[in-house]
């Protein structure tokens, strides 16, 4: 994770650092897209801050994407793509989760749209969200074994 000085000037990063400096694990920028890596215990409080702070106003959660970095640890990665309609700006929040304990707090209470995104990630990657109102399989049948989007799950299915 490279931290260049001009990223520190970024108002979004400055805001987050000012809110809780210990929450930020790193920042990066690739092709003009800003990524802020945060520690998982700060995710939900930060979500509340991101939506309520008038300078940020990230009211629109576009997407939540899970990535499996197997065999690298921490194995799982969650990307929250936020959009501020009033400021016309975007940011990506990233949380890393260890393979033996892929759990994080749900953000459904902050952005209701996260409901289905989190269910889909639970369904396909096996990441659990604490406090989710209805965490069960979504695209796959209820009795399906394994999590297809994990890298140790073959494309042809389990044998």
């Amino acid at each position: 994770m490279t931290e260049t000085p001009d990223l520190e000037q970024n108002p979004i990063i400055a805001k987050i650092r000012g809110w809780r400096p210990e929450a930020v694990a790193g920042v990066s920028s690739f092709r003009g897209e800003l990524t802020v890596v945060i520690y998982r215990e700060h995710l939900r409080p930060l979500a509340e801050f991101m939506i309520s702070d008038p300078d940020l106003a990230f009211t629109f959660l576009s997407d939540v994407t899970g990535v499996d970095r197997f065999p690298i640890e921490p194995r799982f990665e969650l990307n929250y793509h936020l959009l501020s309609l009033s400021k016309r700006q975007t940011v990506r929040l990233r949380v890393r989760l260890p393979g033996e304990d892929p759990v994080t707090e749900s953000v459904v209470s902050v952005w209701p749209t996260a409901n289905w995104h989190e269910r889909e990630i639970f369904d396909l990657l096996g990441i659990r969200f604490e406090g989710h109102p209805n965490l069960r399989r979504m695209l796959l049948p209820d009795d399906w074994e394994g999590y297809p989007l994990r890298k140790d799950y073959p494309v042809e299915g389990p044998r």
Partner: protein
Amino acid sequence: MTTVQTATGPEQTMVLNMGPQHPSTHGVLRVLLELDGENIIKADVDIGYLHTGIEKTAEALTYSQAITITDRMDYLAPLSNNLAYCLAVEKLLDLEVPKRAQYIRVLLTELTRIGSHLVWLGTHAIDLGAMSVFLYCFREREELLKIFELVSGQRMMTSYFRIGGLALEPPVGWTDRVQKIVQTFPSRFDEYEELLTKNRIWIGRTQGVGVLSAQDAIAMGVSGPSLRGSGVDYDVRKYFPYSSYDEFDFQVPMRSEGDCYARYLCRVAEMRESLKIVRQALEKIPPEGPVKADAPGIVPPQREKMKTEMEALIYHFKIFTEGFAPPPGEVYQRIESPRGELACFLASDGSPKPYRMRMRTPSFVNLQALQKMVEGHLVADAIASIGTLDIVLGEIDR
């Protein structure tokens, strides 16, 4: 039959299983409706019947091969899917596409938008009992499909946009066909509006039905015309212009009522705006010029060169055997598909295959709002609410 205990005493409710095979669910959508008489108390949406694991499949294909599976998600707007994916890969590669290709992309995606809205209008109308609109809409859509067939060779699974530009030069005289559409379609739109806009039955079935407030719509992540019908002007083409959309002059139709009628008016107005963009694109597209970026190793060389030049043959061979490897990193590319914000998240690990491809599909997110729209209302209104969200199940289940 389940018994629900209420404050006034035991009350009988009935669970009605709507779908997965039901004409008004526009695919295979299952909705469990808990009813008290004709009123919906609770609606539970069940999806996944069309899940084919497109995101997983993409991880086993090279970047160029994966274009073909993007067609199969939103089968009513394959070109929009192609565009979202190609733009994401191009962003990953930091590749500039020639202006001519960009304008042709804009033109074709706007025609796709009209085609998709026509299917929506036709099916929405037939759900609510207006048969003739359906026939008219499909008549017009046929002309659009002929254009797609003309340029790409395929009516639906086009895969016409490729990484770095277009698959091939469009045939001679194709703009005349588009010109004809630009000239004839406005009167056709008038025809639909004559049939519906002031039709008392249509107004009765859509006005005040499936109301979604701006606040709820944003909280549920709703995008596209469904969001703009609730008075939020979010349109990716205006907010984060891509593929030279900032050079086009068009309006974003918006209504504040948030009901099915408002969304209907938004979409019809949007078709007219799309036609405006098509007209501008026709003027902008230079008659000659490259439709593919000059990027050896990424864009396949011309057939002639491949047969005569050694270097071109090597590139050709390498592209089709091992592919090309973008630098490691992640990108999130949004576009405005006919249904809303369609985004492609690509993670590259520096290998020739996408490490992770994720499609943020508007139908998937928009469908979440259904529960809020139907609970407390009549069963008949649920049909209108499903129709007005303009969902495509192939895109929801992926």
